[in-house]
C-alpha cells in the first residue's frame, strides 16, 4: 500500500489522492514531493550549472583560438595558441628568470601596496573622522584620483630612474586612492547612533577607533583594498614595461613582445592573473576572519 501511495505522490504531487485504507475510500491531501519533482541527477546538474556554463565559455574561446591558430586563419606568430602557451608556461616556470621575475614583481607590488595601506588607511581614517581634515584634503584627493595617474610614469622615471623604485611609486599612486576613499567613506558611514552610544559610554578617541570606527568601516576598507590590489598590479606591470631593468614579469613580457614571442607574453599574463587571484583570495580569507559574526 505504501508503495502505491509513494508512486502516486511522485506521479501527481500536491493534489488530493484517493487512498484505500482499511477497505474504505478516504481522501487525503498529499503535500507536493520534496524535490519539486526533480530527479537527483537533475538536482546535481542545477547545482553545478553556474560553474559548468562559466567553464563552457572558456572552453569555447580556447578551442576557437586553438582551431583558428592551427588552421592558419590567424597568424601564429602574433596570436600563438593555447597549447603553445601552455608549453611555454611549463618551460618558463622551470627557468631561473621566472623566479627572479616573480620576486622582483612580487616585492615591488608588496612594497607599493604596503606603503599605500599605511598612508591610505591613516589618511582615510583621519579624513573620515575629522570633518576639518576631510575638508582640507578633499580637493587634493579628488583631483589626484580623477587624473590618469598612469600618465605619471615618464615623470617617475625622471625622478627614480629605471628600476624598482619607479615600480613601487607607480603601485603606490594607483593603489593609495581607492584605499583612502573607501576608508573615508567607510568611516563616514559608521552608524551615527552607535558612535553617539560609544561617546555616551565615555569612550576615548582611541577606544572609539578600536571598538566602533575600525570594525564598522571594515567592509568598505576591504573593498578599497580589493580595488587597490587590481590597480597595484596594473601599476607594477606598466612600470616594468617602461622602466624595468633586468627582471620582472612586465619586463620579461616586454622583452618577449620585442622578440615576437606571443606564447611567452600570454604565459606572463597568466602568471600575473594568478598572482592577482592569490592576493584577492588572501584578502577574502582576512575578510572572512573579521566578518565571522555576519554568518553565525
Amino acid at each position: 500500500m505504501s508503495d502505491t501511495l509513494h508512486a502516486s505522490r511522485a506521479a501527481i504531487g500536491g493534489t488530493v489522492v484517493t487512498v484505500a485504507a482499511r477497505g474504505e475510500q478516504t481522501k487525503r491531501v498529499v503535500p507536493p514531493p520534496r524535490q519539486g519533482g526533480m530527479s537527483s541527477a537533475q538536482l546535481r546538474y542545477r547545482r553545478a550549472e553556474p560553474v559548468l556554463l562559466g567553464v563552457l565559455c572558456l572552453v569555447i574561446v580556447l578551442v576557437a583560438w586553438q582551431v583558428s591558430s592551427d588552421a592558419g586563419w590567424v597568424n601564429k606568430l602574433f596570436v600563438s595558441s593555447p597549447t603553445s602557451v601552455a608549453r611555454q608556461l611549463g618551460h618558463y616556470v622551470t627557468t631561473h628568470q621566472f623566479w627572479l621575475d616573480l620576486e622582483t614583481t612580487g616585492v615591488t607590488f608588496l612594497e607599493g601596496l604596503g606603503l599605500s595601506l599605511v598612508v591610505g588607511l591613516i589618511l582615510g581614517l583621519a579624513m573620515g573622522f575629522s570633518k576639518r581634515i576631510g575638508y582640507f584634503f578633499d580637493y587634493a584627493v579628488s583631483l589626484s584620483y580623477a587624473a590618469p595617474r598612469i600618465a605619471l610614469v615618464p615623470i617617475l622615471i625622471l625622478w627614480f630612474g629605471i628600476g624598482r623604485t619607479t615600480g613601487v611609486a607607480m603601485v603606490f599612486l594607483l593603489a593609495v586612492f581607492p584605499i583612502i576613499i573607501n576608508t573615508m567613506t567607510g568611516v563616514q558611514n559608521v552608524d551615527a547612533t552607535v558612535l553617539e552610544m560609544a561617546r555616551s559610554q565615555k569612550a576615548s578617541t582611541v577606544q572609539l577607533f578600536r571598538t566602533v570606527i575600525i570594525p564598522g568601516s571594515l567592509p568598505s576598507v576591504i573593498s578599497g583594498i580589493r580595488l587597490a590590489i587590481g590597480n597595484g598590479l596594473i601599476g607594477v606591470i606598466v612600470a616594468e614595461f617602461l622602466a624595468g631593468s633586468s627582471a620582472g614579469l612586465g619586463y620579461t613580457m616586454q622583452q618577449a613582445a620585442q622578440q615576437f614571442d606571443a606564447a611567452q607574453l600570454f604565459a606572463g599574463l597568466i602568471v600575473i592573473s594568478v598572482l592577482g587571484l592569490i592576493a584577492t583570495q588572501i584578502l577574502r580569507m582576512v575578510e572572512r576572519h573579521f566578518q565571522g559574526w555576519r554568518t553565525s
Partner: protein
Amino acid sequence: MTIADTSRSLSLEAAADRQSLDGKLKLQADDVSIGYFSERRGSYFEAMHSLSFSVADESLVALIGPSGCGKSTFLRAVCGLLPHQYGDLRVDGSMVSGPRADCSLVFQSPALLPWRTVERNVSYGLELRKVPKQEIKQITGEMLNMVGLTKFADRYPHQLSGGMQQRANLARALANQPVLLLMDEPFSALDPQTRDRLGDELLRIRELTKQTILMVTHQVDEAVALADKVVVLSHGPGSVKTGEMDIPLGRGRTVEDSRHHKSYGSLVRSLREMLAESAAEEDAD
C-alpha cells in the same frame, strides 16, 4: 522687595542646595537653553529655550512634546554629549560639563555593535572603563538576567528580535549603574504588544533597582502609563516648557493597571490639551 523676602528667598536657595547635596534631586535643569551650529541650515539653531524642571530621586519623569521640539537634544545635553549654552544643568548635584559615566542613555534604535555578542554589548561600557574582568562578568550576568536575555548572551544582535535588541540596549545602560537613566523614545520602533511588555519590564526593573529615569516620548498614553511626572514641551525651534503634571497612579503598577485606573482618561486628555495648546500658540505666531 523687603529684607524678609530676601532672606526667605536666600534660605530657599540654601534649602535647594542642601536638597541637591542630599541627592534628593537627580536632575536639576534651571533656565537651560541648548543650541548648536546646524550644518544643514548653515546657521545657529536654538533647540531648547529656558527650560527648568527637576527629576526627584527614584522617580520616573517623562518629557513629551511634538517631534522636533528638542527633547532628544536635551537628553544629549544632560549626558554631556552636547554643550548647553545658558543656565544650570546639574546631575546628582554636580554641573554637567562633558560626557559623564553616571548618566546612561538608552537610544531609540538599539545602537548595538553588530560584531559583538549580546553579552559583550551589555559589557561594552564596563570594558571601556576597564572594570576588572570578574566584576564585568558578574554585572553583565545580572543585567542579562534582569532583562531576560540570559539564554541569548552568545547571540549576535542581528539574530534577535527588535524587542530583544531593545532589552539589550536597556541592559547595557543599566550595567553602568547610572545615577540617572536617560531614555530616548526607547519603545517607539516596537509593535504595540512588545511596547507594552517592555513598558512593564521597565517598571518592574525600576522597582527592583530604584533607578531614577528621565524618558523622552511623543506618546501621551505611554507617558501616563509609565511616569510619575510628565513635563510638556512646546513646538521647536526654541521650544519652552508648557507645563508639567504629576501622574498619581501609584508605584509598582503595570501598564495595564494604569490604563484601567479611573483617572487615566482624564490625565491623558489634559496632557493632550496641553500639547494642543502649545501647538495652537505656535500656529498663531
